[in-house]
């Protein structure tokens, strides 16, 4: 890309008075990331420990994410309007709006899990919670890695997130089969089994959002749109 040999020795780069606006924007997005991870973690904890109080707390805290999403959209619109950003700044603003939407949806799924956890806490567990925490563990790692890419531009980590999505999909399908046989054998379990199926679906959706965020962060770091590209293609998944 550099046609001429050598580069000018010193190239003065200054801070601009409105750089703090971008810092605020970034920190709001990070706060959203941390908050949505906490919400998923707490919702799963409430489920596994039959802790209805914690589940209610998760449901109430969803507002935080909704408010942050609106704030990020406002800041993005204002920044584009006033500063006409280009290059990585423009990508940051675009990605910020998309990622905040994904994170808000992660929060919604966390609330859904929490609502089901409240109902399930009133009944004896259908079976020990093993698969769901495993799934949510992976989904949370995916979210964490996607956000790490936001913090330090680690594109390899973000690409790995896209590939891990398949793991969660497979666990989700496996759990479906298992719960279906429960329901067939013991119709009394249908109510609880359905709740668990929906929780499994919620976790699968969270992993999807994590994948979106990872793709967005790759775009932010590299300016390259990897959606639907070979780079992030999942290995062919077995038919159910």
């Amino acid at each position, binding site marked *: 890309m550099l046609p001429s040999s050598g580069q000018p020795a010193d190239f003065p780069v200054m801070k601009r008075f409105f750089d703090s606006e971008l810092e605020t924007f970034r920190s709001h997005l990070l706060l959203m990331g941390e908050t949505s991870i906490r919400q998923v973690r707490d919702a799963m904890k409430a489920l596994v420990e039959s802790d209805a109080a914690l589940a209610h707390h998760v449901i109430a805290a969803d507002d935080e994410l909704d408010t942050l999403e609106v704030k990020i959209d406002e800041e993005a619109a204002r920044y584009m309007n006033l500063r006409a950003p280009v*290059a990585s700044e423009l990508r940051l603003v675009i990605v910020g709006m998309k990622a905040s939407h994904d994170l808000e949806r992660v929060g919604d799924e966390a609330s859904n899990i929490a609502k089901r956890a409240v109902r399930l806490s009133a009944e004896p567990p259908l079976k020990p919670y093993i698969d769901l925490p495993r799934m949510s563990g992976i989904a949370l790692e995916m979210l964490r890695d996607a956000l790490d890419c936001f913090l330090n531009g680690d594109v390899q980590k973000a690409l790995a997130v896209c590939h891990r999505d398949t793991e969660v999909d497979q666990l989700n399908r496996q759990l479906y089969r298992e719960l279906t046989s429960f329901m067939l054998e013991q119709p009394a379990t249908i109510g609880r089994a359905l709740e668990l199926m929906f929780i499994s679906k919620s976790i699968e959706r969270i992993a999807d959002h994590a994948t979106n965020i990872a793709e967005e962060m790759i775009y932010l770091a590299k300016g390259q749109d990897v959606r639907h590209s070979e780079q992030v293609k999942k290995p062919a998944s077995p038919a159910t």
Partner: protein
Amino acid sequence: MVTAATPPTLSMETSPQPLPAATAATPLIEVEHVDFFYGATQALRDITLTIDEHRVTALIGPSGCGKSTLLRCLNRMNDLIEGTRVARGSIRMRGVDINGPDVDVIELRKRVGMVFQKSNPFPKSIYENITYGLRLQGLKNKARLDEIVEKSLRGAALWDEVKDRLHTNGLSLSGGQQQRLCIARAIAVEPDVILMDEPCSALDPLSTSKVEELIHELKTRYTIVIVTHNMQQAARCSDKTAFFYLGRLVEYGETRTIFMNPANPQTEAYVSGRFG
């Protein structure tokens, strides 16, 4: 129309056909390893870049980085400044070295017209501003001149505003109109290339967008090289952008890449307004 009888000639064999912008780019001007000096001061260092035909190429960079110098190299306007020289490298237009001994400079400047930062109409009528160059070339036919005046003014999106006062002084026009008059004057001789050095820097936003619209239309017939300090303008009207710093070409590429995802951190800092 071609006055220079000696080959090699810079003019086109056939009349130019408007090309849709989507066609593959053909190199029109090839600048290779050019070093340029004003006396002992080196203003351009090892510049290599290709200007594509029927494209708008924007030259950007901080003040003093050599944009105007490079622009003036393209039609040898620097020849008019004492003590200047292209110390190394070559500039070829359609394969012909423009600094070669056989090149007719007058013919070159006809092929490669120029519009300056400050609109500089002659203190003559609108009509005479446009026909001046043609008369110099010996064109006397009134009907033909009338025709070219109308065509050029239409081409510069000025016809409707001035058609009823073609014989009033060009200086009576507004700044934006004067700049479009200069563009009309430049296209009257049907050049291949129009060089524009900060053509909008003295214009209000409305006149600026008119000139930008015009640039967009003109590129179907001409190749345009524009120097601008307005990043949004470069992003809006050019196909390719070259970023210069201290006489060097730092990055050159598709405008969308330069403004969306530049490869060089200095380019990034400059287009984001962090240079300084």
